[in-house]
């Protein structure tokens, strides 16, 4: 599990503690790439990531007054990014039930430094994720791609610890079955 990701949503952001007067523009310039990366890995859609990041910061703008500890801004924005990504996945799932399925080109998610076969491998993972329920996908992604602790996964997925474990396990079984 990636220790880099483990720290992303929990560690206080020291760089903001000096400036309590956080504005939306400042928050955007500082955290938009972080939120974009998170949303991109969760949804697997490069095309919609910019719009979703905008949605995240519109939420940030409307709730900025409730942020009591500027040093937790990053974790706070991460929660909103996760919520927005969940909403996007639900919308996509719903549309696909009615036949409105956009062709996602998951092979292009990684940069040019990744070999064509590794791109295909990534594509297989995301196509397998598409077959999970949104709840299972969120739980598995937060645990296995973002490196979150189980308790944090349960908190972000708004479910009990045992439910989170069950969802992660279901996702893992499906992924192992498809990807190997």
């Amino acid at each position, binding site marked *: 599990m990636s220790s880099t990701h483990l720290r992303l949503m929990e560690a206080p952001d020291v760089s903001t503690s000096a400036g309590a007067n956080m504005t939306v523009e400042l928050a955007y310039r500082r955290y938009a790439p972080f939120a974009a990366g998170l949303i991109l890995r969760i949804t697997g859609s490069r095309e919609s990531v910019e719009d979703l990041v*905008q949605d995240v910061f519109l939420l940030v703008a409307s709730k900025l007054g409730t942020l009591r500890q500027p040093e937790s801004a990053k974790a706070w924005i991460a929660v909103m990014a996760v919520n927005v990504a969940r909403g996007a996945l639900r919308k996509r799932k719903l549309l696909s039930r009615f036949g409105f399925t956009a062709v996602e080109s998951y092979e292009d*998610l990684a940069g040019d430094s990744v070999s*064509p*076969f590794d791109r295909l491998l990534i594509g297989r993972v995301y196509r397998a994720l598409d077959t999970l329920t949104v709840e299972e996908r969120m739980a598995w992604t937060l645990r296995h791609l973002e490196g979150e602790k189980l308790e944090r996964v349960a908190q972000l997925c708004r479910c009990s610890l045992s439910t989170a474990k069950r969802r992660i396990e279901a996702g893992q079984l499906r992924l192992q079955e498809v*990807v190997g």
Partner: protein
Amino acid sequence: MTDLDRAKDLIRKGIKVDWDEQYLELGAIRLKSRRDRRRRAIAFVSVVTACAAVLMGLRWHGRNAGDGASAPTAAASAQAPTPVRGGLERALHFSDGSLAFPADDQTSLSIVDDTPSRMTAELTSGRSRFEVMPSPSRMFAVHAGAVTVIVIGTTFTIERAASGAVDVSVEHGRVRVELGTGYQELGAGESASFPASSADPASTAAVQATQRRSTPSETLPWRVLAEQRKFQEAFRLLPAASQTWEGPRDLLLAADSARLSGHPEAAVKYLAKIVRQYPTDFSAQLAAFSLGSIYLDQLNRPGDAAFRFGQARTLAGTGALSDDALARQVEALARFGDAVQARARAEEYVRLFPAGRRVALVRKLGGID
């Protein structure tokens, strides 16, 4: 390490965004514009609600409001070309979220057009800064005497100096300044001064000289959009732009726009053209490989995919793509149902790449195991 573990590692390390300062700046401008629109919408709903409450109150008291229902709407008044004078707080708002900031009380600026396809402002005097939302489907222009500044999506300032000249300076993006029959393009950080009248022969000649040197392809909106990965919008502009494309790079970008906006059939056309017209260019290998992937993964045409992977392998020679192209050719042949060819190519793969990462899969697909 299993394939799944490796995939997780690749995703953690390889899937991220690389937004530069300029991209973040444009995003921040767009965010501000969306917030402004939201505030205006809330204000509008509040006003409408208040008006409805007042009307209901009047009716309650038995007063007839006469023809009050036909009072002019906010939308109609917003479209009128009303000059705005002075003050940064007196920003002019265009309906797409673009903003104009008159610098001071001496500035006279008005909106001439504000439609989805065309937005035009006229600067009669003074100086104004413009923050224009990127949009390929509408033209944004500012007139200052004989000078017209045409914008794709950018931030710039235009000033009518006391000498009669028009000064244009660009902060971000790119603008095109037209004067008479000529034009000049200015990029980020550039500025230039133009005569207010097109009758000045020296300036017009200079602008015309620039016109002859300019490369139209560099400023095509679809290309800008494609490079920003806005493939849906870029794809919509492709048909009109095809005659001005230059080389395999544009064709690859066009193919990406088509493929990533959900139009794989259109992408095939551009990729095939690269293979046909630029067979010795490295992009031909990539194009052939991409064609194979599209046929196999998106169009379910494994026979065509096998041919294209074979072509990619031939073009790659002993290059890095050769291994992957041959492995995918085996996959395509297996799906096509040609077990004999699939096995033959699989045996070739095992012979050429005995330590290749895909040996196990290729052996399985080729029926060797």
